[in-house]
């Protein structure tokens, strides 16, 4: 008996299933809201209106989404190689160091459009280097990447704390952060785009790094599905034995892909620092790396899915902030948790039922016609 195998049409696989998961998450969340004595419909309205109701909300949603696109891409690209990079958090944090070095050095003399590429390069490079060590240990010594990247998160946090309370802190300041960047270290906002469509934005941190994020999403697609290296990496991800057979170097693939993953993570630092706060502050990543895991899972490790999932989580963050204000802070944590649970961890819960359903409608649609043919 060969493995029972069914295939769903693309729209069901990538559209219907995530949608059902999401719906279930919200229904369960609704019951939780009900349980604490609030009206779930009111909560839903606050959440959605907070995120998409006004131009201001949309701008914030997209600002958060930018961050999550970077971290989601970081996690997803490694997943294609069969590696679980839990170190996105730390790599992003270290990326902040790259931003700080570039901005503190050049913000006086260069315009933003010159500092920005430098900062992109520096943050990506430091993020990549931070991923290089665990990658090397995995490839050459077999140290498990999950363990090493988790540990590297702690090391990154310690280093950044040391730098931000020491060398990077202005002398007279008591806050653990760099000085404010000058004009050359501040990214232009994109709020006008939303205003173009009639939304009103008072002030929101939605900035040009969103475009960089979209470009990187496209870049990831090209890398994974259109380059020779992407081919080698997917081969290794699916079957290390097949990669060995095909003459693909394990070390090269692991090290390079983890560096790409670290680079995506490092670039995440641009958004909250140059794009919003105009400094590098302690703990500026605040869990975005871990949200990236959920985003990658929900986006099925495909760039389009990741952008959509990142916008969803952006909505939860922004709408959640409104909800926290109106009802309670805990509510949004619960909803976020449920979305991660259903969309991420329980991703396959409804799959068998849906596959069976599709098969009963049309066996051809799920590829059964293929397995029945003779040799």
């Amino acid at each position, binding site marked *: 008996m060969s493995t029972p*195998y069914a295939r769903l049409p693309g729209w069901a696989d990538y559209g219907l299933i995530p949608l059902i998961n999401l719906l279930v998450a919200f229904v369960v969340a609704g019951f939780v809201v009900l349980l604490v004595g609030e009206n779930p419909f009111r909560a839903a309205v606050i959440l959605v209106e907070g995120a998409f109701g006004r131009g201001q909300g949309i701008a914030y949603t997209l600002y958060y989404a930018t961050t999550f696109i970077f971290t989601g891409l970081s996690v997803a690209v490694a997943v294609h190689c069969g590696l679980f990079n839990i170190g996105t958090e730390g790599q992003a944090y270290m990326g902040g160091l790259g931003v700080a070095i570039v901005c503190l050095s050049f913000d006086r003399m260069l315009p933003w459009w010159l500092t920005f590429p430098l900062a992109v390069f520096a943050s990506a490079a430091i993020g990549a280097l931070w991923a290089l060590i665990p990658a090397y240990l995995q490839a050459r010594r077999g140290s498990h990447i999950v363990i090493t990247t988790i540990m590297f998160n702690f090391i990154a946090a310690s280093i950044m704390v040391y730098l931000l309370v020491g060398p990077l802190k202005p002398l007279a300041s008591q806050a653990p952060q760099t000085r404010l960047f000058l004009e050359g270290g501040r990214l232009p906002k994109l709020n006008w785009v939303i205003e173009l469509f009639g939304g009103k934005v008072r002030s929101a941190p939605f900035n040009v790094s969103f475009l960089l994020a979209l470009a990187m999403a496209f870049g990831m697609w090209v890398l994974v599905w259109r380059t020779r290296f992407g081919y080698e990496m997917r081969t290794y991800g699916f079957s290390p034995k097949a990669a060995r057979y095909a003459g693909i170097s394990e070390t090269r693939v692991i090290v390079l892909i983890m560096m790409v993953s670290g680079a995506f993570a490092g670039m995440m630092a641009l958004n909250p620092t140059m794009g919003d706060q105009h400094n590098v502050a302690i703990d500026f990543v605040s869990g975005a790396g871990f949200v990236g895991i959920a985003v990658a899972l929900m986006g099925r490790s495909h760039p389009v899915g990741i952008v959509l999932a990142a916008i969803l989580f952006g909505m939860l963050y922004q709408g959640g902030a409104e909800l926290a204000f109106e009802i309670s802070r805990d509510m949004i944590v619960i909803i976020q948790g449920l979305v991660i649970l259903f969309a991420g961890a329980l991703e396959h819960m409804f799959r068998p039922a849906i596959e069976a359903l599709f098969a009963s409608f049309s066996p051809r649609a799920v590829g059964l016609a293929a397995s029945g043919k003779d040799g």
Partner: protein
Amino acid sequence: MAQAAIELVGISKSFGAVRANRGIDLEVARGTIHGIVGENGAGKSTLMSILYGFYQADSGEIRVGGRPASIRTPNDAIAAGIGMVHQHFMLVDNFTVLENVILGAESDAMLKKSIARARSELERLEREYGLEVDPDAIVEELPVGLQQRVEILKALYRGAEILILDEPTGVLTPAEADHLFRILRQLKEQGKTVVLITHKLREIMAITDTVSVMRQGAMVATRETKNTTVEELAELMVGRRVLLRVEKGEASPGAAKLAVDNLTVRDSRGVTMVDRVSFEVRAGEIVGIAGIAGNGQSELIEAICGIRRAVSGTVLLDGRPIDLTGAADPGELRERGLAHVPEDRHHVGLVLAFEENENSILGYHDRERYAKGMFLDIDAIRDDAREKIEKYDIRPADCRLKTANFSGGNQQKIVLAREIEQNPGVLIVGQPTRGVDVGAIEFIHKRLIAMRDAGKAVLLVSVELNEIRSLSDRILVMFEGRIVGERGPDATEGELGLLMAGVERRETAA
């Protein structure tokens, strides 16, 4: 007809969208040997797993000895008198035979009494059925054939009246298989019922009383063995006429293409798997390596193909050495004209999650014709894949389909097409027809002969003696890592079988 030992009525089972069994009816008479044949994926193993309680049927009824039986777990099956000998033995390697037999059937807190009882019972069973095994031997020290006997003893000890054997001869030498058949006949004479699942038609003809054929999850025919032929069964399995004989002309070997000298390979535990092996493969000949699985054939191929490092020895490809110490780059060997169809196409030869066209360049993805700089030339790759699909009649003819959705035979054709179409000078083929349907076997064999006739050197490794005998121009026999003999294509099965079993093991195996 005698009274039915087992009756299956309308058994259906689906896994998600796949319907593995569709309304199966089966009746096995008491005291007979009943064969079930079918291609891989026809649903044989699923059906037997339902009978043994591993799976629950979605619908249908099982009757044992005329009474409806509810079999929800293997324990229910054992209670109903059904025993199973699995393809992969379920034995505790470091236990003795006796300990394995009572495992799961211990009756007291202390073992002493059960062991004493089991010992006398075992002695009785051994006498009755000719199943001699030393009850105190450690299982891992026994040859495979004897381990299988332990499995049978286990089932009988639990009072099995009906014995199911799943592909029992896959791991046995011909002599061991013959002995197994003698045991099965003896069981039959004592009134036991045997159900034999296999895809080897020769065995069906040799030992069964009745035979049922499964195809695509359905039971398509049941015949009395004496009233059917191998050709008819093959046709029923595949659904069309099949040519079972391989036709080939004389070989006209040329210069040596591949020369292996004194090659020694150890596995990861440091056990010597290939022991000072030397041989040559010349242009225009097929050299077959026969042997029971696990005697070093896999390691030999892997070392030659640069996947596994060798300890010592040399391998010359077209007169130039292959770097064996630092694990040569398989990609570089491909450049030099060494193609390799690996034994394990599911994990090594193919990436099942890839689209067909992606697999058609595996290992050759660096070639100029498939790339534009650092990018893949998707159009070129797909055009190339379509050409191969056409030429090798790969079905379904869709190069965008996921490879996992192709049948075993078509998957093997994808690998063969990829390797042969690169026009290599040397082709190394491991188990080319394992898990491949009868129809595709015919095609694959013709392709290998065509390679030979085109003046290529072909090294064929297979555990199927028939395949080795019908394709090879020279046959090498491997046993415990060494080449223990060379024979011509006219060597008899018995002669090769003895070599495969190792001369010193002749007594235990015969």
